């Protein structure tokens, strides 16, 4: 059924959009899309060769992802076909395997990575939506960056903290397996696979049951069965830092470890800060671990702006939806600040999980894009001699 659309002078009409295929907690084969800005330089520096623009999604070689196709300004019954611009790089089908898209406002397409870049530079092909026939005019494109998977090892530790008296030990109550599954889903969008060890259970003796005090007891934690060649994540009941209430997690990457004299790098997550408990909030914990892993991969906070008492870092949706925003969760309940990742039990919005692909350094706002291209930065760091550990 045609619909009227009044245009005054000129207007750019977008008939079709691409979106992340799910709302809420990250899902392994449903990555976020880097839809920031319209132009991006080709990561190999060869803009003329690709000349693609618009949205970008990251895919692993030999694996598939689902992306949602939204009919924005075109009839739900219009005949549309989906094709890959280069099937040696990736293939794309409507969800049920056909080239023709299902009718309706929304449908999923399945993108299969065929051959990816082995390092930080992807192989690129475009999902193209044709109107009428499979050779009809192209009315939408999604750039697909295919990478060969790189691996990161992670060892989760569940640490019971008891006093010297014994019998009063308190362990983390987090569902570590679920947390790790979500961590994997977040980093999959960068074609980074997480090889998670079995949960290592330990008991340590500290001054107060269930509590690790900064810094001496934290140092002890970071020496507890610390595994080289892996990111070590310690799950405990509570972190206590005098004068700094509300600490739920600490991320100590290699530079942090050198600066502050901890025996090893590591991530420490507390279930509770004495008030709020996050033990049952696997989404929150996973986002925190994935964020800290980003720091291990040398990623800074978005636009190099940290959280302060006055500000939660950059406070607009552009930044809030990124994994490397400094704040999880944020206090902005306005619908315009919905990151698409849902709301935690206390009503605050989850930080997003977007790991940026594009490098918008050529934009008119280039000064604020020094932290772009996080996928490239991460993959370079992971595969370097220094590595992420």
């Amino acid at each position, binding site marked *: 059924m045609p619909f009227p659309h009044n245009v005054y002078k000129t207007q750019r009409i977008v008939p079709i959009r691409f979106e992340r295929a799910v709302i809420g907690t990250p899902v392994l084969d449903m990555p976020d899309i880097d839809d920031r800005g319209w132009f991006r330089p080709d990561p190999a520096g060869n803009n003329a060769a690709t000349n693609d623009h618009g949205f970008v999604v990251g895919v692993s070689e030999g694996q598939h992802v689902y992306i949602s196709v939204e009919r924005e300004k075109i009839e739900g019954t219009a005949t549309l076909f989906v094709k890959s611009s280069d099937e040696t790089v990736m293939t794309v089908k409507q969800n049920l395997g056909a080239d023709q898209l299902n009718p309706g406002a929304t449908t999923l397409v399945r993108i299969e990575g065929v051959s990816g870049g082995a390092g930080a530079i992807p192989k690129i092909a475009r999902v193209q939506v044709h109107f009428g026939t499979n050779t009809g005019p192209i009315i939408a494109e999604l750039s697909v960056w295919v990478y060969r998977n790189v691996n990161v090892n992670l*060892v989760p530790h569940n640490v019971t903290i008891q006093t010297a008296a014994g019998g009063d030990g308190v362990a983390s109550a987090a569902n570590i397996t679920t947390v790790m599954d979500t961590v994997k889903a977040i980093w999959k969008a960068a074609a980074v696979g997480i090889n998670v060890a*079995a949960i290592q259970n330990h008991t340590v003796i500290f001054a107060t049951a269930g509590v690790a005090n900064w810094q001496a007891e934290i140092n002890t934690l970071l020496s507890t069965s610390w*595994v080289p*060649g892996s990111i070590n994540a310690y799950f405990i009941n509570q972190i206590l830092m005098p004068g700094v209430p509300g600490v739920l997690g600490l991320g100590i990457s290699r*530079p942090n470890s050198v*600066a*502050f004299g901890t025996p090893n790098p590591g991530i420490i997550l507390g279930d509770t800060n004495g008030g709020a408990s996050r033990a049952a909030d696997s989404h929150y914990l996973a986002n925190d671990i994935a964020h800290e892993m980003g720091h291990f991969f040398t990623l800074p906070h978005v636009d190099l702006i940290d959280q302060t008492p006055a500000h939660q870092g950059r406070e607009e949706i552009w930044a809030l939806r990124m994994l490397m925003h400094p704040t999880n969760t944020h206090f902005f309940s306005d619908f315009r600040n919905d990151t698409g990742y849902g709301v935690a039990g206390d009503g605050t919005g989850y930080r997003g999980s977007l790991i940026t692909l594009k490098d918008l350094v050529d934009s008119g706002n280039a000064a604020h894009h020094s932290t772009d291209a996080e996928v490239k930065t991460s993959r370079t760091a992971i*595969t370097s001699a220094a590595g992420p550990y």
Partner: protein
Amino acid sequence: MFVNFLKLGSLLISIVLSNACREGSTNAIGLSPTPSPVPVANSRGDRPMNELIQKVIAKDPTATLDARRIGSSAAEPLSRLTTNEDPLVRELALRCLIESGGDGLSRIFAKFLTDEYGSVRGAALAGTSKYIDPSVLPQLINALDSSGDLPEMREQIALLIGRIDSADTRELLARLENENDQLARDGIVAALAKLGDQRGRADFVDGLRNAKGDRLKRYLDYVDYINQEWAAKALGPVLYDKTPLMRIGIDGIPNLGPGNLRACDIALNLIAKILKPTFKFPVDMKTNYTDEQLQEARRVLGVK
């Protein structure tokens, strides 16, 4: 496919090393198609070794801790596992070798600098870096030439070559002539500079003075890598640069110190490390230095 029998105490089990050494392995360096099977351990004393082997085959990252405990006697069975078809097993075997130590490891690691999987290459880089010796130079040159679509690998391999005093700078200069990627060029220039090539040193100083952002951070890392007086003395202009370059803040405790080290802070730390002057203030990796302190560092360099 072959089946290898391992004896764990009184328990005999079979481990299927799936395609561990199949001809046409995915490894791009042409590994031997028929390597020897993983050694069979028979005595009770071999139990830790067997457990280590099992862990590597099972892709358990905690194997590295076992390898560190066992030490260099684990090197031989671990080196055989580096030929496994599964990249995760290859990577883990290499990471275990880094921890176990052993003889002649640099050449084993260098074989995998051209592996088709990035995390295997990363482990190979880490291992080669730790155990580097001059015997590995031909492999490094070969790996440099075989990393055509991986500029980040060319940069890292060039840096390894620069650590071998006997390396011929003409080899690197020839590669520099044909190198178009800035990251790889920077790595080659740093290696040449470390090896004492005068053009390399001039290019390096020029790069250090013109680099911004991530590239400047990389150049500061190169100064640390070069670790020579002339490079430290080239840091004068950077002492004026207050761009944040290295995050040291710890999420959750933002008031613990500065969130970032600036270019000038990193430069001062490098001057302290390489030139070892006596400053009137403590030098550490968690301080944003004052203008007066930065001025004192400039005086050490003899610049305004």
